[in-house]
């Protein structure tokens, strides 16, 4: 419990200091909300809009979660294939790198045209593509980078490639997997959110942010930004908890 408390106060402290500085800056410099809304303004918008915000976060969060799940599964599958077949590795790696470089902004309109814009599908697909690359790259590395002795051990037991995979490569890749997931989780949220900029159902955080920003209602826009930050942190913390829970040996302390 004490441990947990100790891990909470530093970010809270920093947040409080930053927010105070921000508020002070806005008040002292008399910065107008069209430029930079004060935290107090954002907060009042946040709390007055909580209901809508919850609904929007739920919509965008669902998109992000779906995309994260599919993207992760795809990334892992591709990594498994790439590890197993050099040909796949050689073919997929550059493709994945190329695909990863296509900006969401360019991708979304194309996908919106390929899939029904009124559905969630194009947004989930955008998220899948964003999530895929970090998962693929990290998991591939984790699957490949095993200790030579351990590989020899498996070979000496005549483990089939599949068994080597299950008993050695996969557990070895787990810290890499989580590294990838930690990168992918916040990106999934932002992808799901940005995908809403280009039309489609207008109930998510992204739509709300653009609509507020377009009206220079920056207090409201930032309130929604805060909601998306909370959503992103939630995703990240879930991954962290998952790591602690499923792979305790990776987070063992190296110092006594």
């Amino acid at each position: 419990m004490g441990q947990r408390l100790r891990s909470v106060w530093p970010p809270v402290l920093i947040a409080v200091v930053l927010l105070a500085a921000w508020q002070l800056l806005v008040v002292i410099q008399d910065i107008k909300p069209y430029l930079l809304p004060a935290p107090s303004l954002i907060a009042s918008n946040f709390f007055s809009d909580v209901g809508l915000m919850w609904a929007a976060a739920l919509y965008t969060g669902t998109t992000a979660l779906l995309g994260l799940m599919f993207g992760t599964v795809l990334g892992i599958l591709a990594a498994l294939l790439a590890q197993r077949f050099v040909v796949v590795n050689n073919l997929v790696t550059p493709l994945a790198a190329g695909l990863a470089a296509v900006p969401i902004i360019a991708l979304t309109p194309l996908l919106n045209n390929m899939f029904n814009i009124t559905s969630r599908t194009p947004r989930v697909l955008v998220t899948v593509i964003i999530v895929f690359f970090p998962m693929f790259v990290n998991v591939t590395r984790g699957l490949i980078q095993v200790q030579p002795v351990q590989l020899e051990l498996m070979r000496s037991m005549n483990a089939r490639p599949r068994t080597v995979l299950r008993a050695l490569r996969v557990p070895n890749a787990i810290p890499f997997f989580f590294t990838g997931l930690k990168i992918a989780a916040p990106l999934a949220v932002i992808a799901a959110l940005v995908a809403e900029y280009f039309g489609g159902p207008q109930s998510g955080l992204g739509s709300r942010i653009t609509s507020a920003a377009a009206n220079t209602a920056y207090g409201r826009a930032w309130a929604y930004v805060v909601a998306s930050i909370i959503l992103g942190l939630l995703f990240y913390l879930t991954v962290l908890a998952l790591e602690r829970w499923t792979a305790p040996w990776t987070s063992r302390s190296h110092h006594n």
Partner: protein
Amino acid sequence: MRRLKRGALGVMWALGGVLISVLMWELVKWLGGVISLPMNTSDSAMPHVWTMIGGVGQPEVRGSETTVLEAVVAASAYSLLIALGGFIIGVSVGLLLAIVMQRFAFMERGLLPFVIASQTVPLIALAPLITGIGNRISVGPVQWNTTYSVMFIAAYLAFFPLSVGALRGLQAPTATALELMRSYAATERAILFKLRFPASLPYLVPAMKVSAAAAVVGTVVAEISTGVKGGIGRLIVEYAREATAQPAKVYVAVFGAICMGLIAAAIVTALDVYLTRNLPKESRA
């Protein structure tokens, strides 16, 4: 010589990958014509590959001197340069953050949430701030221009994957290796440079790959966001506006971005090969 050959082989494989995706594209299109797919495979949504290729040689607008291809190549090259700048800044900042977070446990807990948070702030909220604040900056004779804003945004996207990967990598050395360094009363700096960095490579390299892609994305996105002229991002929006009537054109521009990504990945891969040249074969990617 051997490296050159490997590089050439890599390019061949990349081309093979492109070829396969082209075939898949056309296959899906064809299938869409035969059976009902849950997607729109019409020429407007998924133009034929040859339509795209055909569009490449066309003049950009009627009567203009430059062809679409030339425009895309020039814009990609311009953006790639900005992306490279963003990548370098992003990697430096990401690495620095990772080092600070690794070094001070309370910093990890204190900073990481903000690093995550930074990535969930949509650019729409940031771009005006960055350009707005940027416009007021001038260091001596150097006046901030929007290109710097673009580079800044590219770095902003690039630093995150790197800091997460680097943090994990810096924590990767075995307990014994750390004890060895401790037994030498090695300074944190020495431990960092002589142990943690080399040991972090397996995590650092994939992180750099993701970062490189993020820098490219960031550049394009920022170009679109701020409307900076000359880059591929601007071209994509301009062509996208004609997508109703000329859907193939925008795909060509997108393909330019893909090529940028490929070049960025190739650079990182070359770096990877160089950095891991001394590790056992099994430990190489």
